[in-house]
């Protein structure tokens, strides 16, 4: 079966597994999974699949029969449209519980730490002031766990379920999530237990301090690692390469003597030997290449006790887990909004509920100046793509056309819209989503603009409606999730085991107070001086932290 199915103009596009390679499809069928169209049509509870264990223990409010039926209907309708997802389990929570879960990013168990307490406090006020009602909470896992507020009306619950289904499909199918650990509940629980054990052994304050330091550097990971080395086969490891066997550079193992001259021809051995000599002469760089995964570097090389090493690896594992979610916020919300809108319209909304649906939908996608609502731009962009690919508004002909009227009237009736958005949701993250599909047309239609903040008054002031500026501002915020690109370039600076980081300067200098704090945290683990090179006002600047504290000077 080829990768892109023929456009099916006579009915809804069936995507169930059809864009996966054959081997994958076979696996799917063997698993009697959601991808099997026959199985998917049966009400879930009659399937021969073991029901997932409820997450939060017995004795809790459960989904009513009614809602359970609705869930099945919604999910079947979703599958009809081509969505696919791991089984979804809904947990009912009271309002005070939902804030506790939300504070923990959707997990019932996290390691003990004050930041979850803080999130809880702030979420609690929000609810009391009725200024923010958490509508849906769903996590990337298998099975997918999602939470419903017991106090919501059935109509709201259906709304949430449609939205959750969209998210579940996104988590399953977007490639940036393909390497994430779907046993995430267990992962968080293991982390929690390890941290608790360390607190028991070494004292809460000490462990908390280490976690705080680790959190300051939790974003110093390599965003490309997950996709580049799917099985953790990270050949870019930063430790010193092992010394090759002396006298046998580049020699490959041989099973039979007579194969020796074929496997290890003299020319190859000679070339390898010469290369070795060259390498010996050059002073080794440590790490050999600049490293973005500073956490990994510290885990492997910092002179710290094992338990602190473990804390670093816990923080690192969680960073990698959450990374794709940070990279796809616009798309994910947009996709979920698109599907709750589609599913609600066709499935749920009988006449009397029309208003309620419209109200809920508009309140979620309303603009909140000056913020750009990620829900809104995501869904609008997906709709725009669908519209364009239905009408054929893409490709060289379209690009070449400059006639306004012709562009407005353009409609080749190609009908590829649905298929295209499925493909888009599979292959992109926010950065490529915006880069590839944000058009001048779209910006004008949706009245997008750039703004910045008056340093004195704090007021936000609109700057420009120009397409390039809007797009560039968005892209700037999306590249590396809006964070400065920092690499560890030298682990043996001055040949004294000092660390040198490099900030790849773009437009703005680093924020001083935070820089000091982060360097201090790295110093805590490294115990030798740490510095970072950057720029300020067009002049090079080095910030360093060592035993005498923080310094900053022109470099």
């Amino acid at each position, binding site marked *: 079966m080829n990768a892109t199915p023929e456009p099916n103009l006579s009915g809804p596009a069936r995507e169930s597994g059809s864009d996966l390679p054959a081997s994958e499809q076979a696996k799917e069928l063997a698993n009697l999974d959601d991808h099997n169209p026959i199985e998917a049509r049966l009400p879930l509870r009659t399937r021969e699949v073991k029901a997932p*264990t*409820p997450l*939060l*223990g017995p004795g809790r409010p459960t989904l009513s029969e009614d809602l359970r039926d609705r869930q099945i209907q919604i999910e079947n309708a979703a599958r009809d449209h081509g969505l696919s997802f791991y089984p979804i389990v809904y947990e009912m929570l009271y309002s005070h519980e939902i804030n506790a879960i939300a504070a923990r990013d*959707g997990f*019932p*168990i996290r390691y003990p*730490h004050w930041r*979850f*307490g*803080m999130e809880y406090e702030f979420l609690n006020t929000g609810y009391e002031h009725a200024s*923010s*009602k958490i509508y*849906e*909470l769903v996590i990337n896992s298998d099975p997918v766990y999602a939470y419903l507020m017991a106090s919501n009306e059935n109509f709201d619950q259906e709304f949430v379920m449609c939205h959750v289904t969209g998210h579940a499909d996104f988590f399953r199918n977007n490639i940036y999530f393909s390497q994430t650990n779907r046993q995430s*509940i*267990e992962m968080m629980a*293991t982390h*929690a*237990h390890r941290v608790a054990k360390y607190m*028991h052994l070494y004292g809460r304050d000490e462990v908390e301090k280490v976690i*705080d330091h680790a959190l*300051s550097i939790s*974003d*110093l990971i390599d965003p490309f690692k997950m996709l580049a080395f799917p099985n953790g086969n990270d050949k870019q490891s930063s430790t010193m390469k092992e010394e090759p066997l002396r006298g046998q550079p580049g020699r490959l193992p041989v099973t039979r003597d007579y194969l020796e001259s074929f496997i290890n021809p003299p020319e190859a051995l000679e070339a390898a030997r010469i290369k070795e000599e060259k390498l010996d002469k050059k002073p080794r760089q440590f790490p050999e290449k600049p490293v973005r995964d500073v956490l990994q570097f510290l885990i492997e090389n910092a002179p710290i006790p094992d338990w602190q090493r473990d804390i670093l690896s816990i923080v690192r594992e969680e960073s990698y887990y*959450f990374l794709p*979610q*940070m*990279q796809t*916020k616009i798309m*994910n919300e947009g996709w979920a909004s698109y599907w709750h809108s589609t599913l609600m319209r066709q499935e749920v909304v009988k006449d009397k509920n029309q208003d309620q649906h419209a109200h*809920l939908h508009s*309140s979620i*996608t309303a*603009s909140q100046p000056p*913020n*750009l609502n990620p829900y*809104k731009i995501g869904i609008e962009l997906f709709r725009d793509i669908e519209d364009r690919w239905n009408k054929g508004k893409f490709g060289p002909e379209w690009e070449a056309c400059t006639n306004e009227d012709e562009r407005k009237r353009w409609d080749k009736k190609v009908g590829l819209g649905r298929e295209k958005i499925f493909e888009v949701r599979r292959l992109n993250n926010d950065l490529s989503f915006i880069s590839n599909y944000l058009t001048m047309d779209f910006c004008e239609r*949706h*009245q997008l*603009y*750039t*703004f*910045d*903040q008056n*340093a*004195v008054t*704090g*007021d*936000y*002031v609109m*700057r420009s409606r120009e397409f390039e500026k809007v797009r560039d*501002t968005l892209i700037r*915020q999306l590249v590396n*999730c*809006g964070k400065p690109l920092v690499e560890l370039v030298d682990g043996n600076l001055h040949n004294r085991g000092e660390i040198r980081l490099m900030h790849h300067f773009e437009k703005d200098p*680093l924020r001083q107070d*935070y820089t000091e*704090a*982060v360097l201090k945290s790295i110093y805590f683990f490294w115990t030798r001086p740490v510095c970072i090179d950057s720029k300020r006002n067009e002049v090079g600047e080095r910030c360093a932290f060592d035993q005498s504290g923080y310094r900053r000077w022109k470099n």
Partner: protein
Amino acid sequence: MDRSSSSLNQPENNSFHNEDDSLADITFTPSYMTLTGFGIDIQPDRARYRDIARGKIREDLGKYMSQDEIIAQKGKDIIKIPLPRIDSPHFQTQSANGEGVGQGDGEPGESISRGKGKKGSGSKPGQGKGKGEGEGEGQEAGEGEGNHIYEEVTIEQFADMIGEKLQLPRIEPKGDQKISSDKGRYTTISRHGPQALRHTRRTFKEALKRSLSSGEYDPDDPVIIPEREDFRYKAFKPEPRPEFNACIIYVMDVSYSMNSGQKEIARKVAFWIDLWLQRQYQGVERVFIIHDEKAKEVTEEEFFSINANGGTKISSAYKEVLKVAERFPASQWNRYLFQFSDGDNYDEKDDSVCTDLLKEQILPFFNQVAYGQIPFQSSRTLPSAETQGFYKTLQNSFNSAENFVQTPIADDTKILDAIKKFFSGGR
């Protein structure tokens, strides 16, 4: 809500006491979770956060001392302190919080929304947890504008926090009465108390009385076991503590050269003075005197709002102070004088009248006299205007006086220093 014992905090489960430190291969199935009920209680995390936030407040106390939000709660028994959000530091560019992309009507150059002068929450679609969590009404997850959480403290706790931070010594009030301690000897008996203060003989006596009257007592097998009602405990009668009272006389220069900004500062300083002295004394009376060339006793509101626009004759204020002080005889009252002015007195003749009055009639009979100079802020203000004029005069005369304190209060940020100066003498 069922409160499962948080098995993480008391690791009685076998898995923790493994000799093998590596827990990497432990796998937890969802069923494990059901054993522990609803996850792990979030209360400890909350408590820990509040502890840390309170610590931060103590660190940044100077900032809080000039905040209107605190001062506006004057006179209440419970003060609500807004707790700060504590962000984890990360490498970040400096204008990270300024720019963004928005959607809607308007023209370039227009102001879109009022910021609060703090870090803005522009569109940062790539940041934040993005945990698939949605918040209705279109708010960006986790950044509720204007959300504050509060820590409630009683006025006493708050005053103690200030005192601790500023390391203010407790005031030893003057007075004829000796201070006697609350706890002397255990002179009476009570029905309630701690086990350590059990009065054994009395307890058994009561038990015996009870068992006799109820007919339980058996002379052949005389066993007495006290019951709860029988228990008696040693107790003390708190001896009446002599009341110490303070009288605070506030003096404000309302001449032409004192404007509303300076009065604001004075008002804030006065809030902390009141707070601290109320903590130290059982009863505090306050008197407010304003003056320009003439002095007058007024109410508190008038004190902080009247603009008299006259010239300045500080001696008139001192005379009025003496008049008022007659109502609070020194034998029964601890008297304080707090004076605020911009230091621009009428002339040197008046200056010497002032110093005489202070030296002869005021200082010897007051616990403490304090003077804060709040200079008028303008582009024409000379540098260190806060230490010129009347300030200098006083300095020359009373540099070594024990119960006289003077301090410049240049602006809002100096309020903390002023309070510290005022009360560091322990008077």
